[in-house]
């Protein structure tokens, strides 16, 4: 049984166009699923819906988000919040804005352990030191006493990763965790997340637009276009032979660093027209009944 099971999730801008169209996907315990698609395809929206942090301007119009068998969308807000807080965590996109500038690092890692999960302060502090060592931060004591502005972007992303694993969540949503980082740091951070995930056995929903990243860390993959899942497959199958024309075009468009002379290949317009027609047909079929 999947730990996270999203069934026919539909989300739209309040009184506006749909942003997710009956999205279904599963993440088994300890599994890594990649969510790929171009900007605006709705991949981050899925992560936000799972974590209960959709902006107020967006509403869920249907479907289920089963977390460990319980539909989050049917829980009263306070219970949902607590369940998400206990079972899930987020590795955010931009480490420069995801830490509170006026609190020290230490409490930002330990606060949920103490406030929500009822740990003692001493246990939580010990845990924070261990985690910082695990994400290879030198001199954890000093870092725990620092303010975010005193640390580099790469350091802050390590801290956010450590913080996400602090309460041993069963599921982590990583929302483009390397996009905002320097290219030289991206690889290290990716390796770090993959290593931590494997050691802790955490299920991971990995939102990215980078298929190269997917091939390195994910086992399964959902390809999104305009809020619709166009392909749901294993990573091995996908890279061997993508089934959907859009997926194939996306894969072909991935820049190959081994052959710089090839240049950038855009997704062909015919493919985009075809997938847009598919989305329109899907909307019509919903409207009809």
């Amino acid at each position: 049984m999947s730990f996270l099971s999203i069934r026919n999730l539909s989300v739209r801008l309040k009184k506006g166009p749909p942003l997710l169209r009956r999205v279904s996907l599963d993440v088994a315990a300890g599994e890594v699923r990649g969510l790929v698609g171009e900007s605006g395809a709705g991949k981050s929206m899925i992560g936000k819906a799972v974590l209960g942090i959709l902006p107020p301007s967006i509403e869920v119009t249907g479907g289920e988000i089963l977390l460990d068998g319980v539909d989050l969308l049917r829980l009263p807000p306070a219970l949902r919040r607590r369940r998400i807080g206990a079972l899930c965590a987020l590795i955010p996109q931009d480490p420069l804005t995801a830490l509170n500038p006026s609190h020290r690092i230490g409490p930002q890692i330990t606060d949920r352990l103490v406030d929500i999960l009822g740990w003692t302060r001493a246990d939580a502090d010990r845990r924070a030191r261990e985690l910082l060592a695990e994400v290879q931060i030198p001199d954890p004591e000093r870092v725990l006493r620092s303010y975010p502005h005193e640390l580099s972007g790469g350091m802050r992303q390590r801290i956010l990763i450590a913080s996400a694993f602090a309460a041993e969540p069963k599921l982590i949503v990583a929302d483009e965790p390397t996009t905002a980082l320097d290219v030289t740091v991206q690889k290290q951070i990716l390796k770090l997340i993959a290593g931590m995930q494997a050691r802790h056995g955490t299920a991971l929903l990995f939102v990215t637009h980078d298929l190269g990243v997917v091939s390195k860390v994910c086992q399964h993959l959902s390809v999104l276009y305009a809020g619709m899942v166009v392909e749901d497959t294993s990573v091995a199958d996908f890279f061997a032979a993508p089934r959907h024309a859009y997926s194939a075009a996306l894969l072909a468009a991935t820049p190959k660093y081994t052959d710089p002379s090839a240049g950038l290949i855009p997704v062909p317009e015919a493919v985009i027209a075809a997938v847009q027609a598919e989305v329109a047909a899907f909307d019509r079929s919903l409207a009809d009944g």
Partner: protein
Amino acid sequence: MPVLSILLVRLLTTAITLAGVAVIVFFVIRVVPGNPIAMMLPPGATEEDIARLSALYGLDKPLVTQFGIWVSGVMQGDFGTSITTRQPVLDLVLGRLPATLELSIMALVMAMILGGAAALTGTRFRGGRTEGAIDVANGMALSVPDFLWGLVLILLFGVLWPVFHISGRVTPSLDLPFTTNFYLFESLIRLRFDLWADIVAHMVMPALALAIPLAAIIGQLLKQSLKETMNLDYVTLARTKGYGETRVILREALRNAALPTLTLVGVQFTFLIGGTVIIERLFSYEGLGNMAIDAVINRDLPLIQGIVILFAVIFTGVNLIVDLLYTVLNPRLRHA
């Protein structure tokens, strides 16, 4: 180290500011028509009487000489003698200062509590009717000046439902055992809660009148920056940790959102102190402002100078405190 350097720079700029204020106030009040000596003497006094008394107060000397005498006195802590009461200006001014300080600080605290509560409630229930109601109340509070609020309060709580005193600082028949003029503070220290209650009942309305417009400004600005802060990434991250809305507002957003408001409160607090002049008059409250109006009516030049200099000292002091607080609240400024 940064705090120390801020202090040093501030002391220097404060000295320059005060020197400028001293020059301006000294010459401006002497250009304005009205002879203080003529005000003192009964109608029908002869020219000779006026000249004799002018010489007594040194008002017959050239302006620049008078300024020199005054400045050298001020340097030695002698602000001159009040023409109307014949008492040292410094004693008079320092005697009234505690009353105005207590009133201003009480008004500031009220404004911060009211404005803070409005902003937090509005943020907690943003997008709904509660926020709308708070915006309307804010708008009303802001569009009526403090002295009109004073009149409204007198009508409500002095006449229609007389629960507070409308005039004075303390009931005159009460026996005051105080050694300082900080009545509110000293009554607390001495555990004389009977006196304290009487003093508070005198201060509530003037303080509230001063506080209402400032509360509206604080409420509006703080709510605005709280709402912006609530959309930032670190607040969203805190939500995923399982924290409720109220806790997220108080712990994650408030401190960061309070910074821009704090700067504004500093500026607005000096306006509030300026507002005490009329409010103290309205409520016959024996503070500096009330004294300033009397001094101007009587053309009591040394007293006016003393009061203006003291107000200037208070204003620069408030700005200094705000700057220091800002460094404390914002860790990013500490090492800058």
